[in-house]
């Protein structure tokens, strides 16, 4: 009777949602692929980890109620929630934690972020509800690493089949995947925590910008968390049925330079390139005004961010003077541009024009993703490329000598080493700021802008994330007004 009474007000509300996604996930196992779309469907909805990202990027407890860190910083003891079960009915225990992490760390692991588990020496189940993680060295950021989609907890029963029928512990369970068209999930009635307010959600895959516009206008789709056509965003926003929500992402868009290769191994040349670029014109011209200028490889909404855009302010005269000082003569550089999303192609053309104004000629080479990964990223065969690094807190890539732009200076590596060992928040902030300064002062790359998250949604939808601290479409708190 009580249930029936509760149901009455709900009748007036919609309890389903259609979410438009630009890319279809290749498969649905977040522990076996880097495609953002895998997490855009499954993160926090189907799968959960010990910890999770909140809407503001804060690290929140998830399957772990709480955790203790030993004095020496080498042992994390995670206390798990009671009464949690997987969607197939199997109870969730500390053994699943041990299984998931051991699998991700294994020799034959295909986890795209295997590096997240690097500090871990072993994982054991002390009892059903206590998982003990032992580290090789003190590492303060473990709860952050475990919040990634790549560190979700899977059951040993279903780990092999998660690619096509994912089984997690989350508030939604997988229903159906019509390849090429849509994925449907529904509320998990046995969820251990606060139940989801939506009964059903459909993810539809629409990559064509004009098709996305038409799908919104025809109300086939209720929201695009990342709307693929910034050129029509204003039209939709002006429509009383919809509202545009502009937030931030973890995507630092950079003009990466091959630091190994002449003339880019000369810091003067790199500095000259950064002064030749007019970030605001780039944001206006390539991104329809959506985006925040950055002066280093760090998200501006992060508390530890330092605004270093002044170091590489737009100054073509300075740029020409620096080139003269470098004495490199006329330069022609290849500029590799990966495919849409459009930031690279549109931005690349503007950058080419801005570089030409200071006397640097570029040869634009448009590439597909696979080709970009093989030639630029793995093969390191490039001069310049425009790319967005969308992983959260990824400044550590500058410490890798073999990374594609090839920095890995000893003083930077020393900062990273100390960062990994420090647990004190103030010291961590100092170190992160030192790292940001180091890569900005050495002009490793030209830092352009932070990608904006341009969402469009029906005005009556509440609870969607405005920002994207990780790539996810968290539907747990979403409801219709």
């Amino acid at each position, binding site marked *: 009777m009580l249930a029936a009474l509760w149901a009455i007000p709900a009748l007036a509300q919609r309890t389903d949602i259609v979410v438009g996604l630009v890319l279809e996930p290749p498969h649905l196992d977040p522990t076996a692929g880097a*495609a953002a779309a895998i997490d855009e469907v499954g993160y926090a909805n189907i799968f959960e980890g010990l910890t999770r990202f909140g809407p503001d990027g804060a690290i929140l407890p998830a399957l772990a109620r709480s955790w203790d860190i030993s004095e020496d910083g080498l042992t994390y003891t995670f206390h798990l929630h009671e009464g949690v079960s997987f969607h197939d009915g199997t109870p969730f225990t500390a053994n699943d934690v041990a299984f998931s992490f051991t699998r991700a760390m294994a020799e034959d692991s*295909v986890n*795209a972020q295997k590096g997240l588990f690097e500090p871990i020496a072993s994982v054991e189940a002390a009892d059903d509800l206590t998982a003990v993680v032992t580290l090789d060295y003190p590492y303060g950021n473990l709860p952050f690493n475990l919040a990634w989609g790549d560190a979700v907890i899977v059951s040993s029963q279903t780990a092999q089949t998660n690619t096509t029928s994912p089984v997690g512990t989350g508030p939604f369970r997988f229903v159906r995947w019509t390849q090429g068209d849509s994925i449907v999930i529904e509320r998990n009635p046995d969820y251990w925590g606060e139940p989801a307010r939506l009964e059903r959600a459909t993810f539809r895959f629409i990559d*064509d910008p004009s098709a996305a516009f038409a*799908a919104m206008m025809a109300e086939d789709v209720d929201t695009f968390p990342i709307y693929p056509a910034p050129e029509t965003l204003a039209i939709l926003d002006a429509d009383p049925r919809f509202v545009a929500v502009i937030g931030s992402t973890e995507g630092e868009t950079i003009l990466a330079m091959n630091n190994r290769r002449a003339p880019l191994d000369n810091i003067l040349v790199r500095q000259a390139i950064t002064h030749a670029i007019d970030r605001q014109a780039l944001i206006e011209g390539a991104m329809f005004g959506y985006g925040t200028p950055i002066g280093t490889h760090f998200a501006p909404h992060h508390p530890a961010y330092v605004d270093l855009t002044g170091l590489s302010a737009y100054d073509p005269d300075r740029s020409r003077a620096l080139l003269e000082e470098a004495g490199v003569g006329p330069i022609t550089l290849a500029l590799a541009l990966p495919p849409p999303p459009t930031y690279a192609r549109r931005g690349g053309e503007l950058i080419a024009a801005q570089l030409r104004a200071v006397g640097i000629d570029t040869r634009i080479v448009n590439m597909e993703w696979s080709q970009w990964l093989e*030639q630029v990223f793995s093969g390191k065969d490039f001069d310049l490329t425009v790319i967005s690094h969308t992983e959260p807190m*990824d400044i550590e890539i500058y410490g890798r000598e073999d990374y594609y732009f090839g920095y890995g200076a000893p003083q930077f590596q020393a900062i990273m080493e100390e960062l990994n060992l420090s647990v004190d928040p103030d010291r961590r902030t100092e170190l992160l700021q030192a790292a940001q300064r180091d890569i900005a002062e050495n002009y490793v790359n030209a830092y352009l802008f932070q990608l904006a998250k341009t969402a469009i949604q029906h005005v009556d939808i509440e609870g969607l994330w405005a920002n994207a601290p990780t790539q996810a479409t968290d539907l747990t708190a979403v409801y219709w007004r």
Partner: protein
Amino acid sequence: MAVFVLKRLASLLASLLFASLAIFLVLEVLPGDPAAFMLGLNAAPDTVAALREQLGLTAPLPQRYFGWLAGMTVGDFGISYTYRVPVSDLIGARVQVSVPLAAYALTLSTLIAIPVGAIAASARNTPLDAGIMGMTQLGVALPNFWFAMLLVLVFSVGLRWFSAGGFPGWDDPFAAMRALTLPAVALALPQAAILARVMRSSLLDTLDQEYMRTARAKGLSQGQALRRHALRNALIPVLTIMGLQFSFLLAGAIIIENVFFLPGLGRLVFQAISARDLVVVRSVVMLLVFAVVTVNFLVDFTYALVDPRLRRPVS
């Protein structure tokens, strides 16, 4: 007739074998590693190697080619690198959209083109004929994706009669046909324009033939002569074009499938190419080659039925 069929079958098999080799080799030399694509920017090199091993990318070339051929003969196209499901399942699901869409569009275009072409021919050199020919000229020039967007704006966004795209599946055949209607119209109209022009000129050719004069001399009206004698003889060029069009509609609907976000073969192959899902790409391309070759075979065969002269070997 049997010799004719056997000869055609032999050339069909040879074309298929040649195509399979070409497709396999071309895709092998294409740059891009599917494993690196799937693991993204943060993956360690040994993780990529582990995935390559798991995907079976490390076996030698001839072994993989013959493995693929042998698998195809029993309907096993392999496992998709990215989707991790059998390619035959993927293709099976996509064919349920693409084949009905192509058939729907071809039916529409035929239903429009044949009467329109016949009317234009019988009203030769009148303002009606000129009007129809002007319209078809416009139809030929119209890019189908632009026309598709126009249809969406009018019928989905404006009038809200149809959804702007997507495909609900065949559980509800009415909804499925509805979802295919706008894409089919967008595909059909430019094709109909071409077909109507071919129909008109082919009919005009037959109208000048002597047997037509004989038919009129027997006392048949212009219309009766057209229906009984001219139409059948005018069909051979029309059939040729229709055969080409069916293959085009099946393989060439990539853009229309993108505009209407339909889960068809065209979009499958498009996504698979950018993801370097070579197993899917080569199997779908092979299937399309098979469809084109088979349709051409059937068209040749239909010629022989329509025109007995073509059955006889050339002396």
